[in-house]
Every structure is written in C-alpha cells, then in structure tokens.
C-alpha cells in the first residue's frame, strides 16, 4: 500500500493530473495537492490516507522513511508536501525531515502522539513547517496546503530580493497575498489564480504562479555549475541573474536559479547553524571582528588561506559536496569537506598551538567541521601564511574537532567560522593590520560560541582553538584559537567544551585543522590579529565567559545534518549576533566542506579524513606556497581564492596529492605536523 497514489477520491483525475502537469485548474486548488505520508503505524497510516483523500488530496503512503526518501529522490517534483511521524523504527523522523529539507526542500509536517514541548521544539528547530499531535483530526489536515503556498511565496520573495522579480510576478504575489491571508477565501484564490493564469500565459512560462512553477531538477552537474558560478561571484554578490549568466545553461530561468539560491542559502545556514533570518552574507562578524581582532599570528593568516583555499576548494568539490549534501545524505558530502579542512590543518603550523590530546577531544564536533562551511571560501593566501603557525595548532584542533562529535566545543568552531567570514573580507594582506579584526571580534564571539560553556576559562579564544575539534565552526574559532593558543593556556587545555576524550584519528584532527585554518584564513585580520587575539583573549576572558554563559547551546537544537554540533553553533552564532549569512556566504564552500567533514567525521571519519587530509595536504602545499608569496598581498579581494587558486587548480592539486604532501613542500612547515601521521 505504499504507493497508492490514487487520485483524490472525489476529485476527478483531471484535477490531480492538471496539478501535476502544471495546467492547474485554479479553482480546484488545493484539491490534488500531492501529499506523501510516512508512518510506521499501519492503523494511523490508513486513517490518514483516508482523511487526506477526503480532503481531495492526492495521497501516497509509506510506512518506512527510507522508502519515502527513495520515492522523493526518484521523483523530486512529484510531491508538494510530506507528513511524517516522529518515531519510526528505521529512521528518526527528524532525520528524515532534515534530508527532505536539504535535498528536496519540501514542506514537512511532523506528527506524533508525543506532545511534549521539547519534541515540538525539535520539530521547529529541524525545520518542520508544522507539528500535529496524534490522533490527527481531519480538520488539521484540511489546511496543510497553506504550507505549500507559504513556502512558494517565500521563494518568490527571494526572487524579489535578488532583484529578479518582474512586475508580473509582483502582481501575482500581491494577488496571492490577498488570497492567502484568508484560507477560507477560496473564491478569491480562484479568481486571483485565474488572473495569474492569464498573466502566465502572456508572460514567460516560468513566471507562472509559484504553485505552478515547473521544477528544475538540480542534478549534481547542474548544481556544480551553480556553485561554481556562485563562488565566482562571491556569495555576497551572487544574484540569480548573474549566476544564470555564468552558468549559461539553456532552458534555465532566473527563477529556477533564484529559488535554488534560496535553498542553497538555507542549506548553508542550516549547516552553520545560523538563524535563517540573516540573509546577508556580510557578516557582522567580519566587521566586528575586524576591530577586535588582535594581531593574529601568521598562523591565522595561513590558516585562513588554507581555509580559503580549502574553502574554495575547487568549486567542483564543493559543488559536489553540496550537491551531494543537498541531494544525498550528508554522509556523502562528508568526503569533500575533509579535504578542505585538512589543508587547513596542515597549513597551520603553530607550535604553540599544539593542541594535543586535549584538543582532540574537543574536536569531536563533527558539526564543527561543518561550520567550516561558514568559512569564507575566499581565504587569502596571506592569511594562510599568517595562519601558518596557528594553523598547525588549529589543525590539530580541527582534527580533533572532526573526530569529536557534538562537543560543546562546537561552539568554538562556530566562533571559528565566524571569525573566518570576517577575515575574509578585508585585510588579509595585512598581516597585522587587518587580522585583528577577526581574531578579536571573531574570537570572542566564536569562542563564546564554541566554548560557550566551556570556554569560559581562558581567553575564550584559546579555547576556540582548542575546540577546533568541536565544531566545524570551530574553524573560525580555530583561527581565533590559534592566536590564543599561543598566548593562552590553551595547550593541553582540553577544550572545556566538552571535548570528547577520545579524539579519533589524526584525520579527524586534520579536518579540524582545516577548518581552523580556513577559519583563520578568512579573517584577513587573522594574521595580525593573532596578537590582538591574544590580547583579546586576555582581556576578554571574562567576556567570553559571559558570552559563553549567555550561549545556551541547546543540544537539541536543529542540527544541520551534523548532529547537534551545528545546533550549538547555530545557537551560538545567533546569540553572537553574527550574521549567519555572512558566515554562510563566505564559507559556502567551506561549509560544504565542513559538512562533508562532519559527515566524514560522523561516519567514516578516518577514512574520509584521511582522504581529505591528503587532499588537504596537497592543497595546503599549494596554498602555502601561494600564501607565502602573497603574504602581504592584497587582502582586498574578497575572493582570494579565485584569484589565487583556480578551482580546478585546487581540485587537481588536491587530487594529485592524494598521497600527501611531503612536508618539505610545505612552506608552512607544519611543525611537528607530519602528514604521515594522519591516521587513515
């Protein structure tokens, strides 16, 4: 009975068919809404199916989450909304929710007999658009179409924001607004829809009402092209129109790109755990960080660069990662990320930062790695150089981070990430001048984030560094941490974050490093900021503590496929007030990478980490070399990466150096950091 997709019992086949093919008969809506209902309880499933049919929806029922995912993947445009139970034997309902949100971006309604507040909250944080308490009444199902409409409207809004809305669309939207406001206004809805239909006929096909938009299937290749274009433009400047031009795909419309961009942003935000309200990629972090960043050691710069490099990791890899992440389970995406991170890790050559075992523990946060995503992909080489030192330490941290699961340390990663975005922008070149930005400002926030609970002790920043392992986010924090580590007591201080004592293999650490590196790289200020950072640390320990205190990581918060770590960082980030967008934007690729790292960390940590490490090493090598030369180069370029590293170059570099980069090649000279140590 899984695929009983009969037409609505009452409605004619034409209405449901019309709904599907796009020739929606306006006045039949919401009849024909294609609902996928997932519940392992056959009794509930039967009842729900009947109820939905009575609402004139087109129902497909499924008693296993895996089956549902398969169905959704096979037919991405085949459903309008998903209703899923929370407790299922083969997969947690929230996990399914995440998958659907990332891969298909469909509205999902959760159901459960459990009406406990925390469960409902979990639904909210995981992105469910509604939560129904069982036993479900038919009245509750009658209005689920509103979620479909709302989601599409938001996509339209995104069009507007990106400046691609045409007047016709606007009119349509307005009419939609009027209608949507009253769900009982079916009549108005019909008329407005009719009007839209008329307009649609005259306008481009693609300008149909959001409900009738034909969906484009975003294959891996297409998504890769998309990501390439976005990275070329820079997250901040990526507008659908330009992306479309860059992609140069016949048949693709601006709306397709815009809606995909919206999803992509949401995806990154989820990964970095930043609130969705921060649409701007220009992270406040960066600005704040600029000011606060103390002189980061060169390490930071290096890290950043590596991060940048890694973050920039060839668009392809990132794209693949993203595509993978978006289109598949996170586990897959995990692979690419480690690559990025690893590079960073290696780039860090911060003797002081030798985060030893302690750090490793903190590294657990796979999520943190994901946070790396937030790290701006454009890491300036210079920063890498500066981060070089810190990178090492950070790298260690990173590794640890990756290995560790959701540690409180995650926060640190958050911080790191935060730091990164900031660094990106500006002043990479200045070893000292700019860096401060990141470190100080970033450090703090990040630290607080990652460290949140634990950090309180040290400068916060140092903690971040330690934490690197914690969160992908920690990458940014790692950046911060680096400086900190030097100065502060970091070493050995296992991240209070809750480091998980068993840091896994080096690989995980490496991943962390990468993250860290990337983090550091981002903030141009990193390099110089290292010093500042240290200062900050000292001055701000209290602050951090306070911040940390303020940070209440809610483990149960939404976790971007990372598992909770991200949640923390998210909350932290949010608390910090950092613009998730900025973080995301900048570290899109990093984010992707970190996501991948996380996944890797979660699952095949070692394996992936290893691969990544290798790749990263090669990347690092490349980066380091470049970094050195460009140490003081222009930090101005936002997209350092594109300037310095072609994505293809990076990719090939990465791939070529799978074997790992000989330490000698690394200008960064990972002190004490030997590639070979990366456990495989």
């Amino acid at each position, binding site marked *: 009975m899984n695929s009983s997709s009969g037409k609505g*019992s009452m409605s004619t086949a034409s209405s449901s068919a019309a709904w599907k093919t796009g020739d929606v008969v306006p006045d039949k809506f919401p009849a024909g809404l294609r609902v996928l209902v997932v519940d392992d309880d056959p009794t509930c499933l039967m*009842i729900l199916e009947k109820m939905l049919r009575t609402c004139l929806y087109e129902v497909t029922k499924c008693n296993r989450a895996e089956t549902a995912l398969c169905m959704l993947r096979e037919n991405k445009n085949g459903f309008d909304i998903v209703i899923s139970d929370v*407790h299922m034997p083969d997969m947690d309902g929230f996990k399914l929710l995440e998958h659907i949100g990332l891969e298909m971006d469909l509205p999902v309604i959760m159901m459960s007999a459990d009406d406990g507040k925390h469960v409902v909250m979990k639904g909210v944080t995981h992105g469910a658009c509604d939560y129904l308490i069982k036993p479900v*009444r038919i009245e509750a199902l009658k209005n689920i179409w509103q979620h479909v409409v709302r989601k599409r409207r938001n996509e339209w809004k995104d069009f507007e924001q990106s400046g691609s809305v045409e007047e016709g669309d606007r009119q349509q939207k307005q009419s939609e607004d009027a209608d949507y406001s009253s769900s009982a206004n079916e009549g108005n809805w019909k008329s407005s829809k009719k009007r839209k239909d008329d307009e649609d006929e005259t306008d481009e096909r693609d300008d149909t009402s959001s409900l009738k938009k034909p969906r484009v299937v975003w294959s891996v290749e297409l998504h890769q092209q998309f990501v390439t274009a976005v990275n070329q433009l820079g997250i901040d400047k990526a507008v659908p129109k330009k992306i479309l031009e860059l992609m140069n795909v016949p048949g693709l419309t601006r709306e397709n790109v815009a809606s995909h961009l919206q999803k992509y942003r949401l995806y990154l935000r989820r990964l970095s755990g930043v609130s969705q309200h921060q649409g701007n990629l220009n992270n406040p972090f960066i600005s704040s960080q600029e000011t606060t960043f103390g002189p980061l050691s060169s390490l930071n710069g290096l890290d950043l660069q590596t991060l940048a490099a890694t973050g920039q990791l060839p668009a392809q890899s990132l794209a693949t990662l993203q595509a993978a992440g978006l289109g598949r389970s996170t586990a897959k995406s995990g692979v690419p990320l480690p690559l990025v991170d690893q590079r960073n890790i290696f780039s860090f050559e911060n003797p002081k930062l030798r985060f030893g075992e302690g750090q490793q523990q903190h590294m657990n946060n796979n999520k943190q790695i994901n946070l790396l995503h937030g790290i701006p992909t454009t890491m300036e080489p210079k920063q890498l150089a500066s981060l070089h030192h810190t990178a090492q330490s950070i790298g260690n941290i990173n590794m640890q981070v990756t290995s560790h699961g959701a540690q409180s340390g995650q926060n640190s990663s958050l911080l790191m990430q935060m730091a990164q975005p900031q660094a990106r922008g500006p002043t990479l070149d200045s070893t000292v001048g700019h860096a401060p930005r990141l470190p100080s400002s970033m450090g703090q926030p990040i630290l607080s984030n990652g460290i949140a609970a634990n950090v309180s002790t040290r400068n916060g920043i140092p903690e971040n560094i330690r934490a690197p392992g914690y969160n992908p986010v920690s990458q940014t924090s790692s950046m911060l941490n680096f400086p900190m580590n030097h100065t502060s007591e970091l070493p050995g201080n296992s991240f209070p974050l809750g480091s998980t004592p068993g840091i896994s293999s080096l690989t995980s650490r490496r991943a962390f490093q990468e993250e860290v590196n990337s983090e550091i790289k981002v903030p141009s200020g990193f390099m110089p900021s290292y010093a500042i950072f240290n200062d900050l640390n000292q001055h701000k320990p209290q602050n951090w503590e306070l911040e940390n205190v303020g940070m209440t990581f809610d483990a149960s918060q939404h976790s971007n496929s990372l598992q909770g770590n991200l949640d923390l960082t998210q909350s932290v980030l949010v608390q910090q007030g950092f613009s998730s967008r900025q973080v995301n934007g900048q570290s899109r690729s990093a984010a992707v990478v970190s996501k991948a790292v996380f996944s890797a960390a979660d699952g095949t940590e070692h394996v992936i980490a290893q691969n990544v490490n290798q790749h990263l090493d090669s990347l690092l090598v490349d980066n380091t070399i470049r970094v050195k030369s460009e140490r003081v180069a222009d930090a101005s370029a936002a997209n350092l990466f594109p300037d310095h590293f072609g994505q293809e170059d990076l990719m090939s570099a990465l791939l070529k150096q799978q074997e790992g980069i000989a330490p000698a090649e690394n200008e960064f000279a990972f002190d004490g950091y030997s590639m070979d140590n990366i456990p495989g």
Partner: protein
Amino acid sequence: MERNPMRRQLAVMRQSLFDQGYLDEQFVQLEELQDDANPNFVEEVVTLYYRDSARLILNVEQALERKPFDFNKLDGYMHQFKGSSSSIGAKKVKAESTLFREYCKSGNGEGCMRTFQQLKKEYATLRKKLEAYFQLARQAGPMETACHPK
C-alpha cells in the same frame, strides 16, 4: 429516530460505548470518513488496529518477563501502542497506556505490571464490544438507507 429496530439497537449500543468511556471523539472521526467508497471503513481500521497492536502487546509481555525492566524499551512500545489506540478512539485503552508510561518514566516496575494487566483487560473488552457492534451493523444494513427519509 431510527425506524429499523436493529438500527435503533445499533444506535443504542453505539451510544453506550461512548457513555461508558470505551470510545471517544476520534471514533466519530473514523465514522465520518466512512462513505460509499469505503462502506466498512471503521471496521477495517479497527481490525487492522487489533492485528497490528497484538504485536506490540506481545513485545510488552516479553519485555516484562525480563528482569530488570528496560523501562526505555517498555516506554517505547507503549508510546507506539498509545498512538495506535488513540487513533481509533480507544479511550480506556489509551488511558491505561498513558498510566503505564508514567510508571515507566518513574521506574515503577510494579505499577507497570499492574497497569499492563488492566490494559489488556480493557483492550480485550473493547474488542468484544466492537465486534458485537460491527456484527449488528452488518445485519442492520447500510446506514444511509435508514437515515434518509424516503
């Protein structure tokens, strides 16, 4: 009022099920879903429920035989069972499962066992009553003809 005496009897039986607390509003929801396309919908759902929930009852039985009690597991089973029972409107059964879960949460093994016995009793009683009800309903003929005045 029902002209058909059987229909009347059926109505009385139905009402007493509600009055005595065996069934709640959710059962009405099921009845409202019954239509020409699915004339025996309610009976089908109830049959499905008893078939599927038997497995859960068995799980709980077996879990209660292993000492010490795995309260988490027990709670998990009961959570599912409660969801199922509530969806057909089995009011008393649902109440017992809620109580059972409370005992699980507080780690009260004695309470769990006691409650489970009570639960099984209610579960069996409801089954008998509903079986009688459906049997009568089949004999009484389709509702529509009885309800709509000629």
